[in-house]
């Protein structure tokens, strides 16, 4: 009797509605992340930080550094000041080629903007929100178009 009662109660419960599947929800692998190190003259730190920020980069840390190149090397390069800024940025793997292309062009064209940049692959990040923040993933964005902020400024 009790069993029947239990069965009835269960059947009375409204069926759980499964979450509606998103239309056009493309299954895409998570974008890989990289750490981009950019070493430039300290006076140009803000300029380069802004340029990199234009590619949908949400986290950048600017550290005060000193160059170690010897005087004769500096003279050859035309760099008299050893004060440097090390910009550490978390960038998305798919944005890296565009960022490197931009940096290469700016290192050549900006007066006193000679610098060096390299990237190191990141292997893990903990927390979904952290990953979404670092990769600039926004809910509802069209995966085919990507993030509009990621286009070259």
């Amino acid at each position, binding site marked *: 009797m009790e069993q029947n009662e239990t069965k009835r109660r269960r059947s009375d419960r409204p069926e759980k509605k499964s979450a509606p599947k998103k239309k056009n929800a493309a299954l895409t692998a998570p974008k890989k992340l990289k750490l981009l190190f950019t070493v430039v003259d300290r006076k140009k730190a803000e300029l380069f930080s802004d340029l990199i920020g234009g590619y949908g980069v949400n986290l950048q840390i600017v550290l005060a550094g000193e160059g170690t190149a010897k005087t004769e090397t500096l003279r050859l390069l035309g760099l008299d000041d050893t004060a440097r800024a090390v910009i550490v940025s978390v960038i998305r793997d798919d944005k890296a080629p565009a960022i490197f292309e931009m940096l290469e062009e700016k*290192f050549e064209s900006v007066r006193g903007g000679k*610098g060096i940049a390299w990237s190191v692959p990141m292997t893990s990040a903990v927390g979904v929100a952290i990953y979404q923040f670092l990769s600039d993933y926004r809910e509802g964005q069209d995966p085919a178009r990507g993030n509009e902020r990621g286009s070259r400024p």
Partner: protein
Amino acid sequence: MTFSHECIVCIVNTGFSDAVMDAAREFGARGGTVIHGRGTASREAERFFGISIQPDKELVLILVPHDLTDKILHALYRAVGLKTPGQGIAFSLPVDQVVGLSVFSPDASGEAPAGNGDA
């Protein structure tokens, strides 16, 4: 997977960055960047191992071609390793892309030469 360049990170007591660069230059490194930092070693571990850690640190970043990495790391171990006053540790990170390396050699024919880590 091997990369053309690696980034050597060497963390030493303040004042030893010149010793780091001297050791690295000996094996082909061209330049580096020094960042000042503060170490946070465990007090309990310091007591256990009977060593004292100077909190002020210098972090030296050196970008080098892959084939020089081992030699430079060994040189750093000998010159500023944990058993020296520099009390340094050094490790390398894989670098998958680089821009901005200087071309120095007068006979360079447009190709990126080895040994140009002028960070």
